[in-house]
């Protein structure tokens, strides 16, 4: 993610944004937070896949998913799979999605997050987990999509400050 030789570009901003996304995912601020918190890592991943598809893509998505699996003590590979899928789709449609107004992007984000929630629910059902049909997961998808405009603007500001293409 950080390449030497690109003078003047602050690639570490991407690393930092992922780091904080991981922190927010792991943070325990109370029962409500844990129940409905959106997947910050997915949101940040979608943004960077749209903004810098040449650099941030499937590989980054996979690593972030893996780190999130380890950080949340979950099944290894589960979130890695979903984030890889999200990154792939976001990268594929990056150029088109970038041209959309923010609220239409939010709809696309809603679809991507919803797809992830669906896969996780299916996996949970297959594993026989008792909380597979957790409705909080879908509320989190909605909240994630609603937060997209705010996140988009903040990360865009960071990206411009970092002089990333």
């Amino acid at each position, binding site marked *: *993610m950080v390449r030497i030789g690109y003078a003047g570009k602050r690639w570490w901003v991407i690393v930092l944004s992922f*780091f*904080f996304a*991981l*922190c*927010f995912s*792991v*943070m*325990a*601020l109370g*029962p409500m937070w*844990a*129940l409905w918190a959106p997947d910050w890592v997915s949101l940040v991943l979608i943004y960077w896949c749209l903004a810098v*598809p*040449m*650099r*941030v*893509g*499937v*590989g*980054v998505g*996979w690593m972030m*998913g*893996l*780190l999130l699996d*380890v*950080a949340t*003590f979950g*099944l*290894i*590979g*589960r979130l*890695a*799979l979903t984030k*890889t*899928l999200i*990154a*792939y789709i976001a*990268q*594929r449609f*990056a150029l088109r999605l970038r041209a959309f107004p923010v609220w239409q992007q939010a709809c696309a984000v809603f679809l991507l997050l919803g797809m992830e929630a669906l896969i996780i629910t299916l*996996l949970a059902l297959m*594993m026989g987990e*008792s*909380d597979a049909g*957790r409705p909080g997961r879908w509320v989190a998808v909605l909240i994630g999509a609603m937060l997209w405009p705010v996140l988009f603007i903040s990360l865009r500001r960071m990206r411009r400050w970092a002089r990333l293409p």
Partner: protein
Amino acid sequence: MTYGIGRSRTRFVVLALLSLVLMGLDTYTDSLKQTRPIVGLIVVPVHLVAMIPGLILARANSLPLDVVRLQQDYQALKENRLLLNSRLQRLEAIEAENDRLRSLLSATGYTPDEVLLAEVVQVNVDPYSRTLLINRGTVEGVYEGQVALDANGLLGQVVRSGVFRSTVALITDSTQAIPVMSVRSGLHVLAYGTGQGNALTLPFLEPTANLREGDVLVTSGLGQRFPRGYPVARVTRVVSSLEESFLRVTALPLAQLDSISELLLLWPAKPVVPSDIPPKEDPSSG
């Protein structure tokens, strides 16, 4: 990373398949168990930063607002400590006597277990599983299956241990079953967690089983998981009906499961011995 959007499809397929392989490995084998703590090290800074807001909130909540309340609490704690100390003295005397008696009978002695205090970092809000996250991990020697207690009784056991934090499943979690024994009657039975509410259930007891309401259940030590003698629960309901072939028994855990902020982790001093019967008296020492 990516060298062109065109190449990412192969990359995607490879990584997706790899993820599936990892999931399979993690579900069906133990081969990933060793890598978890190593990768977990990378994630440690994330956990550390994530703890900061929680610490700030806790600090803000604990600011003393009422000096009188503080003084009363202090007095009560002092009295409680005096009481406990006197009981402790008696306990030490009894332990010493026990050791002497056991050595007289040539039985193995009893050594106390080591404990470690842990704080609860997060309570699992999942309505179907009763687990907590604590602030101790493998750096302090925490291991999977380790027993957790509070001041009043058995709380549960460690089900997952990371480098700095571990997950403890309470005895009321639906995956937990504790081998217990009634103090009054010596009846051995299993206490199952139900995953709901605060109760344990004791299934598969014959209607003639010697169990009454109010009986205290302690760990029996069978199964080598939980050391013997720790209080677990008190029987609250024994329902015997003609249509059912088993009793329906409910027990309430003695540990304060609703208000846990700290707990003790246990290291048994020696392998647990299920039977307490000393060997036959040695004729030469008679």
